């Protein structure tokens, strides 16, 4: 199956290794991965700060980039997937663009959603020995409704035990520009998240959104905690 890869700006610039492992995972599943080069950022930093109007040219550019074929689009980030899925609403005053946006949005899948729902696979033969806390990101569970897919994939990873933590589904405090604009509040949120994680002393922190992982990982690093931060794509390609 041919698939388009939407890398997201954070993975592209800062966490390329996560992107590489996502490609590896998709190829392992028999996908022929294509990378439309004209893709850019989904626009969250600007849209979520309120600059909706001036973000529209970039949204359209994004839509154009993925109109190069009709294949599914896969991305290793819930929040970016949710953003693109909101394009039709943002562009509703331009019906032609809204239609094109909808077509792209309909082809777009978050990684675990794609693997479990579209490919129908949960057993990937991965192995990772140790205990882990899985952080369900807000975008995944509340915006995309992807709650069980990552868990069913992680359940099949040999040697891995997931530990529940208090207030598991509470936001880690990232929130995009929120983490900078409201740094103090965001900081308190991530401190509490790390406190709850530390209570169960896991070996790993696993998530499906690199932004949350950077946030929680940044706090773990600050506290000198030896908890290894892993994107789910990395976990699922571990052996």
């Amino acid at each position, binding site marked *: 199956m041919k698939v388009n890869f939407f*890398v997201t*700006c954070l993975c*592209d*610039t*800062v966490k*390329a*290794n996560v992107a590489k*492992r996502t*490609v*590896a995972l998709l190829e*392992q599943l028999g996908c022929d991965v294509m*990378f439309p*080069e004209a893709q*850019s*950022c989904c*626009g969250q*930093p*600007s849209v*979520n*700060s*309120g*600059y*909706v*109007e*001036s*973000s529209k*040219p*970039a949204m359209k*550019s994004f839509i154009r*980039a993925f109109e190069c074929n009709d294949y599914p689009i896969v991305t290793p980030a819930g929040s970016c997937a949710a953003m693109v899925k909101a394009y039709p609403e943002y562009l509703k005053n331009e019906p032609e663009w809204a239609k094109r946006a909808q077509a792209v949005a309909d082809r777009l899948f978050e990684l675990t959603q794609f693997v479990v729902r579209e490919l129908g696979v949960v057993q990937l033969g991965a192995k990772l020995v140790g205990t882990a806390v899985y952080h369900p990101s*807000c975008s995944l569970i*509340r*915006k995309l409704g992807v709650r069980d897919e990552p868990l069913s994939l992680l359940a099949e990873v040999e040697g891995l035990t997931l530990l529940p933590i208090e*207030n598991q589904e*509470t*936001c880690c*405090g990232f*929130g995009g520009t*929120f*983490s*900078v*604009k*409201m*740094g*103090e*509040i*965001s*900081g*308190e*949120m*991530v*401190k*509490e998240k790390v406190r709850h994680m530390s209570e169960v002393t896991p070996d790993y922190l696993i998530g499906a959104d690199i932004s949350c992982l950077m946030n929680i*990982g*940044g*706090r773990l690093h*600050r506290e000198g905690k030896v908890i*290894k931060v892993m994107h789910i794509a*990395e976990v699922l*390609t571990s052996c």
Partner: protein
Amino acid sequence: MSMKTSHATFKERIDIQMQDGYMRQSVANAQERMFSNRAKAADALGNWEQWREMGKEIRQHVLENLDYYLEQLSDKVVENGGHVFFARTAEEAAGYIEGIIKEKKAKKIVKSKSMVTEEIDLNKAIIALGCEVIETDLGEYILQVDDCDPPSHIVVPALHKNRTQIRDIFKEKVDYQGTNDPEEMTRFVRQHIRHDFLEADIGITGCNFAVAETGTVSLVTNEGNARLATSLPKTHIAVMGMERLVPTFEELDIVVSLLCRSAVGLPLTGYVTALTGPREGDQCDGPEEFHLVIVDNGRSTILGSEFKDILRCIRCAACVNTCPAYRHIGGQSYGSIYSGPVGAVLSPLLGGYEDFKELPYACSLCQSCNDVCPVKIPLSDLLLKHRKVMAESKLTPLGERAAARAFNYVNARPALWSKTVKVGAKVANAAIKDGKMLFNAGPLKDWTDSRDLPQPDGESFRSWFKNRKQTTVEQQKNEAGDRHD
């Protein structure tokens, strides 16, 4: 107290509040309890999503036909012998009530908890007339006694105070001699203000929901103070936000059920009281005169705007009880009588962006508020709309606007974006060492105050993808390596 409860800036307020260890512990505990009580109550009822959908549709229908239902309501109230005053502004509402006070030569007024009377700054107007006003809800009483400390929660207004603080306030202000035991203090207040109910000339309440068909005002309470305030004084004045009504008792069932379960996790609160006009002629207790004051105070502007969904709100505070930002900054940080997500949406609408422009940003857009709202208000979307309005009316900082413009310029040009990413990946890698920026990066400081930066991988994905040889999956895994943070 008007909408605005503080003259300090938002940053000043959160700095003060975040230092208040007791408040933060108390809010965290309260959130856990109220969140789980609500969730249990919703589960116990079953079909919660269906209930929410019905709640949303009822409230939506009322808003779409608000003029009709208000007309019906007011016709019914006068038919039953009551008075109705429509107030476009806070001043008009307070002015009408002042008129009644003067006419009755009232010396003492008992009030039960009402947010809209806070909004119109009613107590100030009453006191200016030389009339005594007693807030009789225990939480409100504590705040009033404590020199009118602002509320920190729309359902539990004194949530930010612990029992010892309350004991000390009572000791200093009302000569309380007992311990800090909540039951003992509660009983003290019962004894202490019982005579006020018996002596009061007027009882003032809010209105949870009016019923248009019958001209009824319903009050959802626990303490019995609202019943006393509407049974003993000769005059009862109910003040309601103009959107707080339902067509008939059938809809009242649904919204009251949603309110009680969402607010306190119970099928019903201790008292749900439905009051229709003054007492009938053959009865000897209950008010002889009933006045309903219907307040707009900015609501009609909201009704005609893209924010109209917020008028569905039934003031249950479920959103407050789940909000992670509220959890850490507490209610007083909002600087408004309305706090939490609903406060962040409502305060700028009712009180203007000038005073409340930061509130829509005090949100990580996690959407847990959307998930718990019993009438399905898309709170987090409304907060985003506020940001949009402010960005587009140039109320945001100049530097931020310039940054957004630059970002959007580059982001809309694929070739330029690609170049930027490739260079950016290398620069980021060089600029960050061991989680720290090697130079001062301005706004990133707020990030690095509480956490480190990630170590960038060095090469952009797109450079790698373009140059990669067709390799086996195994080789790719090795190539990508096991490097993590």
